[in-house]
């Protein structure tokens, strides 16, 4: 079993000079799943986990499994310390001002729901405008639709242009109508488009809106500085960034969080409960009711350590290299249509379709070659409708992705074309 996991990758060789980088073949040894021989091209869906993450979780289970925040004995103190240590790691990762601004959630979906419920129900009123974009994941659409229906608010969606990039002209036009809330994804999960988040947040703030950035496809893949970004809320998931499922983050500016009512209520989020009423706990615990996902949060801390040791700039540089390689390789395939912007303006996500072959058939054929590929609407049905397709195939990459996995995908595509010829 791994020693106390500090999250350091197997090796950080090659970081000495020049552009930040790491040796992919070396870090792959931290991911036992690759011993099965799979080519894993579905990291935008969920990432793989290194031993450092599962080791940190196992260590909790085997050495100090206990509940947090009510320690009368040593192992519970240890559990609490490690659980809370993740908060500082995450704060540092996204450069928040305080750990009070780092709320643990189950993931991005719960984080956005928390804002829709606790902030939205207080501040969104009849006739208010909410601005979203057509490329949002369902988790950044449905909570706002429910809120808008309840309050009688209106939702407008920013469209995309032919390259799959947001129509900023339309965005600025919508801002003239003084929206109460602007919520958008930093990176599109379906197209990989990197949105000009900095510019969009600044414009939305200038227009007086509260701004939520869905960072589910952002934080795992690039350096994020929430203070520089200037958003009010930033949501992301641990399981897309080498961590386990069930642990995610809501960052919120402290003034906003302080003024918000709790989301879930019950144990642990209170200071005192009397039959006449209840005093809520301070931030961040006010938003963390009930027994938490302790092992998962500890695992997320190990994942953040791992990524921090690699360096987020190096992560981005590696993904960019793989994405350029894959984009070029796929462009050479006859009868293949690529969706979204050129590799320089996209994250490690490539959506495509093949003439005469449904994405699900391709995914089934790829699966026979142990190539894990996503096929479907990628939880972005409004975008699929906008593109006029029912489904696409999607390959997505991460720190451990190698070029030979992309080559294997191209091999599966050619096999599919041979079968369907």
């Amino acid at each position, binding site marked *: 079993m791994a020693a106390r996991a500090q999250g350091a990758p197997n090796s950080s060789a090659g970081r000495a000079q020049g552009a930040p980088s790491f040796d992919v073949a070396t870090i792959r040894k931290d991911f036992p799943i690759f011993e*099965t*021989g*799979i080519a894993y091209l579905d990291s935008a869906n969920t990432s793989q986990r290194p031993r450092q993450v599962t080791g940190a979780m196992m260590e909790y289970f085997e050495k100090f499994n206990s509940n947090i925040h009510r320690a009368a004995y040593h192992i519970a103190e240890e559990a609490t310390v490690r659980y809370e240590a993740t908060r500082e790691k995450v704060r540092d990762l996204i450069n928040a001002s305080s750990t009070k601004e780092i709320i643990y959630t189950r993931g991005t979906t719960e984080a956005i729901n928390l804002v829709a419920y606790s902030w939205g129900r207080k501040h969104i009123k009849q006739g208010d405008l909410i601005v979203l974009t057509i490329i949002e994941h369902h988790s950044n659409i449905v909570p706002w639709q429910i809120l808008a229906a309840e309050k009688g608010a209106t939702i407008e969606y920013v469209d995309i242009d032919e390259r799959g990039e947001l129509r900023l002209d339309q965005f600025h036009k919508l801002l003239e109508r003084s929206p109460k809330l602007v919520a958008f994804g930093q990176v599109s999960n379906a197209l990989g488009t990197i949105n000009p988040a900095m510019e969009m947040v600044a414009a939305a703030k200038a227009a007086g809106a509260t701004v939520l950035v869905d960072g589910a496809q952002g934080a795992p893949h690039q350096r994020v500085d929430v203070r520089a970004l200037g958003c009010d809320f930033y949501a992301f998931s641990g399981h897309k960034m080498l961590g386990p499922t069930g642990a995610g983050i809501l960052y919120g500016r402290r003034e906003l969080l302080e003024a918000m009512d709790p989301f879930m209520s019950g144990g642990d989020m209170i200071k005192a409960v009397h039959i006449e009423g209840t005093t809520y706990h301070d931030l961040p615990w006010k938003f963390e009711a009930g027994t938490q996902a302790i092992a998962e949060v500890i695992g997320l801390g190990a994942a953040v350590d791992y990524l921090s040791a690699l360096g987020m700039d190096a992560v981005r540089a590696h993904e960019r290299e793989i994405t350029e390689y894959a984009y070029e390789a796929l462009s050479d395939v006859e009868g293949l249509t690529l969706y979204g912007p050129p590799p320089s303006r996209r994250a490690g996500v490539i959506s495509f379709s093949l003439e005469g072959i*449904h*994405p*699900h*058939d391709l995914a*089934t*054929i790829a*699966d*026979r*070659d*142990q190539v*894990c590929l996503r*096929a*479907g*609407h990628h939880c972005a*049905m409004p975008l*699929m409708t906008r593109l006029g*397709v*029912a*489904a696409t195939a999607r390959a997505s990459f991460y720190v451990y992705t190698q070029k030979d996995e992309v080559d294997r995908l191209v091999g599966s595509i050619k096999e599919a074309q041979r*079968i*369907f010829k």
Partner: protein
Amino acid sequence: MSTRAGTAADDQFYREHILDHYKNPRNFGRLENPDISHEEDNPLCGDVIGMDFRIKDGVIEDIRFHGRGCAISQAAASLLTERLKGIPLEDAKKIGKADVLGELGIDISPARIKCALLSLKVLKVGAYGLAGSYEDEE
């Protein structure tokens, strides 16, 4: 977790007859003034299947299907229309999952079962809809 493929059944997944029905669907198109017309979709993968029936004296005299989607959903629909043409509607109602999967003749993974059974759903809802007594079997 993905298992290593390569069994005989896997290698036969896109068998000749499935590809043939996908590329050359039987009874494809629409009927004018059908007695029954029903369409279902599977939003998860965007498969759509619709069927038009002409019923005479309780028998499916003619049938057409339309739609789009993966090879499995389209081939299953094509195979089903071949089976339905000329049989009494009451017999058609008795066709079940096992019959459809049997016609396909391949191992369908849980992820693709909805593709394989979409046309059966169209038949069931369509046929029972006419009788006014359909209840969801699922």
